[in-house]
């Protein structure tokens, strides 16, 4: 079972709440996905009066925990402020740290993210930072007290799959905290692939929300994540990349 900080998850598929054509459809899709951790942009929520918030009211299910995110902030200072606000409004100390000062490609700022992680961890937050697939940054974030790392597979919303595969493999091989592949996963096969290489979880939003049938797609992702994880645990057979020479190259040693 996946454990992040003090919480255990039986589903390794995390989801987002943006881009759906209605809150009802979102709810139905998220239920079909089996997801137990759902991220919500703080900016979309009525922070003062979230009891009546349409988005939040569709997420009220026993098995779903909310993961507020700081989307929209541009630096560590704003992020820390937003996290505090989220903690107050949504009564959770979990925070998905998203600092992307670049609104075009939404690339995460590694420097500000590290600073904010450090501070938020000190303040007792469970920090899940969205970052580039940068192995060194992941280690620095561990030192700073992060509870997981969320490297991107490809630019957010691009549905391009695991463009950062080589770096993800390094990150996974040396990480002491759960690795959640976030952003870029466009198809269930991408999610399965991420799980096969040993990612602890994936976060999927766009690929479900803007698909032709979000509920069916959510189910497909659920199955893909389970299959990928099962394959990882069963240990994939090693691929053979070249032919085996018919006369051994080292046989002279034994002659």
């Amino acid at each position: 079972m996946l454990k992040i900080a003090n919480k255990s998850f039986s589903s390794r598929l995390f989801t987002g709440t943006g881009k759906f054509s209605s809150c009802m459809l979102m709810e139905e899709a998220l239920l079909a996905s089996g997801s137990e951790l759902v991220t919500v942009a703080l900016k979309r929520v009525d922070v003062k009066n979230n009891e009546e918030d349409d988005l939040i009211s569709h997420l009220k299910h026993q098995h779903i925990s909310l993961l507020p995110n700081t989307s929209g902030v541009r630096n560590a200072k704003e992020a820390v402020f937003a996290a505090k606000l989220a903690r107050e409004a949504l009564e959770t100390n979990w925070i998905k740290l998203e600092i992307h000062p670049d609104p075009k490609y939404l690339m995460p700022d590694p420097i500000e993210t590290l600073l904010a992680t450090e501070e938020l961890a000190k303040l007792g937050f469970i920090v899940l930072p969205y970052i580039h697939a940068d192995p060194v940054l992941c280690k620095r974030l561990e030192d700073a007290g992060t509870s997981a790392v969320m490297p991107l597979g490809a630019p957010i919303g691009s549905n391009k799959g695991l463009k950062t595969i080589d770096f993800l493999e390094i990150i996974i091989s040396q990480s002491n905290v759960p690795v959640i592949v976030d952003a870029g996963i466009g198809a269930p096969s991408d999610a399965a692939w991420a799980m096969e290489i040993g990612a602890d979880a994936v976060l999927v939003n766009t690929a479900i929300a803007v698909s032709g049938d979000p509920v069916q797609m959510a189910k497909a992702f659920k199955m893909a994540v389970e299959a990928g994880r099962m394959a990882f645990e069963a240990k994939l057979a090693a691929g053979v990349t070249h032919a085996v020479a018919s006369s051994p190259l080292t046989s002279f040693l034994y002659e």
Partner: protein
Amino acid sequence: MNNFSDIFQTMNWDEVKASIYAKTSRDVEHALATEKRTLEDFKAMISPAAAPYLEQMAKISQQLTVRRFGKVLQMYVPLYLSNECKNICTYCGFSYNNKLKRKTLSPMEIMQEVAVIKEMGYEHVLLVTGEDNETVHIDYFKKVLELIRFHFAHISMEVQPLDLQEYEQLTPYGLNTVLVYQETYNERDYKTHHPKGKKSNFRYRLETPDRLGQAGIHKIGLGVLIGLEDWRTDSFFTALHLSYLEKKYWQTKYSLSFPRLRPFSGGLEPKVEMNDRELVQLICAYRIFNEELELSMSTRESETFRNNMIKLGITSISAGSKTNPGGYAVEPDSLKQFEISDERSPEKIAEMIRSQGYEPVWKDWDNSLA
């Protein structure tokens, strides 16, 4: 490079125009097939040669928009604060020479208007004024922002261009977005459309987005007034401006509008007409050229047109708008900037959006975030 003027100076309106009209169907096909599109591709997509490709462009535009923005539309509404104006602009209802009674809302009146707007469900508001530096100035703006900032999640402003220091003073008051339309990039004819007032200074206006970028404003809105000059050439310059700004002020968001000249009391007919097909072409061309750009559509456009456009690239839309100060509650009959075309209520528009499988989003920012 100091600002956009330096690039602009190297360009020639007539040459740009000729190059757009020289684009062929081959150029259009290349533009639609390629993945990384350049300004030359944009030219092809807005050229007459692209007209037969409209359906294909609409399909690409829809797909790109949904991927980036999802099946949602942002809702906003204008709040006209004043129709006092010292500029003469040939196309505007607030023009100084339009001898009608003027009004600037007092703090109490603003709050009456705000109450009605909030009742309609709005969290994103666009403040609009004319240009009268004696009544509608930086101190007035500060007062207004102070008054309303905690009533809205996101505040935009469409007022006269200001100095860098003035913009810097306004951001701490919760100003998120500034819209400043160049009206036309045809420097030669700009003077004829703006014969008198501060607005007649073409360069000061042209350099305004640079000042906004330097001031760290979150979002900058660009656009030209369609109907003043050749819309294809003007749109190319807008795209050029946008590309320059995106590279230089990389932390800033950008949005674009496509206002077509509307009738107003005492106004003139558009010099250059743009039909519906052409407007669709332009909107799709912008989307295909720039996937991340916010594209906004006001109540200037008709019901049918708006109903159909929400799926083709538009990302934000207004509804129930009044274009006169006091229009919502205080003084419904004061002088309007222009006649709106789609008079449906926000509720009706939201219903129309939902019926097309999209979600109207009222709040996508928080005043506590910055």
